[in-house]
């Protein structure tokens, strides 16, 4: 018989919701802590089983705790997603119409870009072209900050990309609404926003997937067309990456 929901599961869910998204090691710690607090049998390394019990109860509500990998460092993250929405309804109740339009346009820019980033200048230039209601640049800047704070976007040196939480939540939406331009990673077959693209055939790969894939190859060649991979392979010159990588796989 399938496991029942306990207060440990409920607490886990509550804390996950208040964080929006949690990194794998954080979630494992929380799993343990919740079991301790409620004196529920704790099985080390069985977080995914624990979560599947929660998910069975969330399923009739069209919700799910989903696991996704960060596009920048490849680490696992967990987030509660709403499966019922085909549109961005979760955002819809939180933002005004023109804020949503700005978000959609930013998403367009990010997804159609080569590397998965849109510059703040390009985004702010959209502010006075919004159809619903124009925004001043200053205003748009603040709205962007809120999107970052709410974990829909992440920012690096004035460039914006989709936050891991946003990708976990909206992967299906993006794949079906941006069919022609959204790329799937050649290695892990999930949506790839930040990616490297083969110059010859246009196939894309996540940066962590590139790193993992080419580590096993003597010469970097595209897994699709076998042409030489012309992009710089991330992490090859930075020992820091190998360090975090190995501590990750150790579990």
């Amino acid at each position, binding site marked *: 018989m399938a496991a029942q*929901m306990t*207060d440990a599961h*409920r607490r886990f*869910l509550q804390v996950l*919701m208040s964080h929006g998204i949690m990194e794998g090691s954080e979630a494992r710690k929380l799993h343990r802590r919740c079991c301790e607090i409620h004196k529920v049998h704790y099985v080390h390394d069985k977080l995914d089983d624990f979560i599947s019990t929660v998910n069975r*109860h969330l399923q*009739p*509500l069209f919700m799910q705790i989903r696991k996704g990998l960060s596009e920048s460092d490849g680490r696992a993250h967990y987030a509660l997603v*709403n499966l*019922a929405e085909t549109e961005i309804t979760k955002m819809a109740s939180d933002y005004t119409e023109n804020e949503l339009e700005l978000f959609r346009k930013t998403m367009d820019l990010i997804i159609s870009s080569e590397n998965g980033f849109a510059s703040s200048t390009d985004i702010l230039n959209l502010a006075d072209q919004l159809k619903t209601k124009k925004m001043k640049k200053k205003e748009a800047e603040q709205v962007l900050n809120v999107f970052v704070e709410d974990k829909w976007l992440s920012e690096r040196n004035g460039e914006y990309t989709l936050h891991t939480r946003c990708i976990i939540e909206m992967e299906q939406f993006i794949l079906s609404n941006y069919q022609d331009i959204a790329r799937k990673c050649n290695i892990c077959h999930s949506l790839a926003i930040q990616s490297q693209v083969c110059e010859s055939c246009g196939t894309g790969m996540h940066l962590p997937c590139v790193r993992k894939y080419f580590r096993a190859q003597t010469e970097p060649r595209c897994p699709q067309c076998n042409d030489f991979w012309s992009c710089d392979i991330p992490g090859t010159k930075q020992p820091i990456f190998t360090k975090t990588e190995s501590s990750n796989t150790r579990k």
Partner: protein
Amino acid sequence: VSLQQDFPGLFLQEEEEEEEDFVLNQTPTYTQLLAFLHPQAIELVQFLLVKDQKKIPIKRADMLKKVIREYRDVYSEIINQATRTLQQVFGLELVEIDAKHHIYILTSSLPRAEGENLCQNDETAKLGLLTVILSFIFMKGNSAKDSAVWEFLRWLRVKPGQRHSIFGDVKKLVTEEFVRQKYLEITPIPLTDPPEFKYQWGLRAAKEISKKDVLRFVAKIQGKDPTFWTSQYNDAEATS
């Protein structure tokens, strides 16, 4: 549960395959009931969770207008199902904090874990600030003047006029956001010129935060025993 009355056949059929005797005197488990929720109850659960994430109190009028819509005749059934689901799946309770305007919040119904209350959301420094303010108010006898609160915050290097690197506009955070979220209640003191204000715990704070934990927090910082503050200690013991 009226759900059982509505769909008696469904539950029986489901279990009949397994073992017959067992079925007849067994009430359906919650998991089984979940499959028969009214679509509006599901939508209401989602709606309440989204609002709660930002700690926005929910008006009944909004629930009716945005979620229940044309199903008003089964309103109470929908609310019952949603409340039960929130309880069973999320460990959350829908609480009416304002009976006159019918305003609700979600609060956790899980038993409090030792010390958990004050650090559950420790990733948000904002709630750290809130805890500090609530502690101050509590130690001042459950009510403090605005001038005293801000003097105390200034002493912690949090200044109302300056943009704080984490809190942003602190004045706005404290006097608008915390108030809107019902963590703080700020009321004008009558007959004061220039106007002065009284800061007290809001209804959410009263519901979610234990005075015992707050006193323990203060005692820890000050390196004293909670019993050192007799009236606060009695207050905390009485309200928990």
